[in-house]
């Protein structure tokens, strides 16, 4: 069964980019375009990897991450924090909140792909 990747970003274009990058049959792709939807979808589809934008309407990426990390159901879920705020402090905040990886926009699709593969490898 293909691994599920949940893409959470309020920017349509960004979700389209991630989808185009990862859409080669190896993964099941699910999208969410705000914080509340992200949590609902996560609970619904139990993804292996969540790509989480830091700034979204509703709950922010950090808030969602905090909720996920207190839920034993998501103990093994890998989270990549995506953000266009590329300050060092943002990176630290994301890692501290329990993100497995931090990817600053703009990022290379290939980099994203490798990263997701790597995380899925860790999952196995």
């Amino acid at each position, binding site marked *: 069964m293909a691994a599920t990747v949940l893409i959470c970003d309020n920017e349509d274009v960004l979700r389209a980019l991630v989808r185009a990058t990862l859409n080669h049959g190896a993964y099941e792709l699910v999208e969410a375009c705000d914080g509340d939807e992200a949590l609902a979808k996560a609970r619904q589809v139990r993804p292996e990897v969540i790509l989480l934008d830091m700034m979204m*309407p509703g709950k922010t990426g950090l808030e969602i991450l905090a909720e996920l990390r207190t839920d034993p159901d998501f103990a093994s879920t890998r989270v990549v924090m995506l953000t266009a705020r590329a300050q060092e402090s943002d990176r630290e905040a994301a890692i501290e909140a329990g993100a497995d990886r931090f990817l600053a*926009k703009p990022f290379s699709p290939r980099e994203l792909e490798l990263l997701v593969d790597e995380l899925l490898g860790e999952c196995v």
Partner: protein
Amino acid sequence: MSAAPNPDFRTLFEAIPGLYLILDREFRIVAVSDAYLSATMTKRSEILGRGIFDVFPDNPDDLGATGASNLRGSLTRVRELRLPDTMAVQKYDIQRPRAEGGGFEVRYWSPLNSPVLDEHGHLLYIVHRVEDVTEFVHLQELGDEQQTLATQLRDQKAKMEAEILARSSELHEANEALRRQAAIHNATLEGSADGIAMLDLEGRVVLANNALDRMTSAILGEQEQPLAGTKPFGAATAQVAERVVDRDAYLRGLERIEAEPEAQFVDEYELKDSGRAFVRFSGPVRDGAGEMIGRIISIREVTTERQAERLKSELLATVSHELRTPLASILGFAELMVERQPDAETQTRYLQTIHGEAKRLTGLINDFLDLQRIEQGGFRLALAPVDLAELVSQQVELFSGQSSEHELEFVLNTDSLPVVAEEDRIAQVLGNLISNAIKYSPGGGRVQVVVDAVAAGVRVSVRDEGLGIPAGQQQQIFQKFFRVDSSDTRAIGGTGLGLALCRELVEAHGGRIGFESAEGEGSTFWFELPAVTQNRNGERQRVLVVEDDRAMANLLQECFAGDGFAVEVTAHGEEALRLVQQAPTALVCLDISLAGKLDGWEVLGSLKANPATSRIPVLICTAGNNSTQAAVLGAADFLTKPFSAQQLRETVARILPENAGLVLVVDDDESIRSLVVGALAGAGFELREAADGEEALLAVAKERPAAIVLDLMMPKLDGFAVLERLSEDQELRQIPVVVLTARRLSRSEREVLRTGAVSLLEKSSYSAEELRELVRLAAAPLSSAG
């Protein structure tokens, strides 16, 4: 041997019959008199070059010895104040040379220290003079038992009194100098905006300036007693601690002051409620002898600095975020295209996205640059007649395609929308408002764009049913970099520049911008642009058409409205007399045969008989030929039907008292010149012509025009050169210029034209109407264009 012409001063000094030491700034002995050596049982070679306290330490056996420290205090005063300092009689024991058995010999001294200054008043040396009064003290101790010594004692006493007199006057001078110095110190202390406190070794406040008292009462939010002398510093700071953001860090700072009294340190704290920030400096204070006598605490408010820094770094983060988001898509899709070589259809989709995001990025950068240019001044609008209805409908259409969740609606409540504006700029403003309405209605919904005629001109409103603006943040909404902050809006992208830019642009057009909003219910942002034809009060002039023939009335209405008048039509004379009283009327256009009981002549008679309406010019438009009767009854002019629109316009221009101004038409092509003159004729302008740039400048020098219509390509001096010459003159650069050009201008040419009071008609063909409106606006004394 005769005396040398230049006496040997050192030898002379050393031989002087008194006890003298010469010290340098560091209190090292540089010269000593023989008498001093013998009185102190020392040798010159042993003491020259050494510090005085090294040579003459206190007697270690005498625990109460204060001689050395008193002397140090006196010498320090002399060094600092550069004034003589007299000391009280000192007990200062002398170290006996080892050859004479060593130990200390009890001695009493009366010392005087005086400064030796150079021509600039800088201290060179200190002369230390002492008198050995040991014997005198002993005598005093012995009392007057020894009669033989009494006489000597009296002599000594007289000498002492004289000495005391001399020295007390010196002390008085020194005190005066100290008081002056204290006044200077006090002024310095109170002149400081920083709060300054001096603490003694026990932590009591011995000195505090007013700035500190003000800060303390501002921080504690109550009128405090002045700090100095009232309580230990800790009491006030403990209260402050409860109000700072990081209480523990603040208290740690205080603990450090106590634990390391000799250390200098700086810390910073911020208040919880007000966000005011303070930097605290603390360091030891030492006396002249290097002894620590307390601590100084200096507190500086840095709220403004910290706010500016915060704003800047927030801006940087925002800008970074805003630039990175489109960049992510551009770079990402470009990489996918290169690496994956997708099929043609996918490629097109990727390219469209890249293109769209690149455009978005460009828009963002343009906003930044625009705002910066407006702020730096030198920003000019390229004004031209704009069809506002078309512009609005274009924008609405543009945005309708961008969001499927929002329903965009265009409501046009007026049909006459003559505005002169820079089309792209107004589109930019409207686009910004619509884009905000969509962005801040994250749940979708209706966005209405409404165009209304208002007293000031035309109002365009953009109404949404979105988040609305919290009341507390409404005031800042047009501030640069301000973005509504709530949990709902935090993630909505934006530079915080859009509305600031909108306001600048609308105001540059002579318009105004505003909004109404309720949190949770939505917002209505609107802007108003002035209508084209206005009188000096900024209102459109009103024409009353009194005509019973429907077709004729319509024709007249169209003519007048096209020229920017507000028109009212009636077929009844009675109604006309009523309407004319209701609002200021610039002109009555009156037919003779009317629908009601009154005919035109009667209406004219009534108008002229009533003092309130007698000054309104009346134009008789009739099929008959009774011009004489019209003139007799007081009509301003007479037109016989049928007449052309041109005739009407010329007649009206003649009648209306307001002269639209002198206009200079500059073009080397005579046919174009006469075209322009033809278009402007009859609109109330006084016209002059010039066939090239040189002629134009001569004409301007002779008679300052209200506006210039200028061709760019001309022999001798071209249009750019004319503009340059005009711009060199403080007065002439104010003249509005309408540039006519048949070709598209380059970007750099447009930039040049922006620097003057220039509006641009950049078309190969334009209507006479368009040109007339542009010139009329340019020449209007209260031209509303920026």
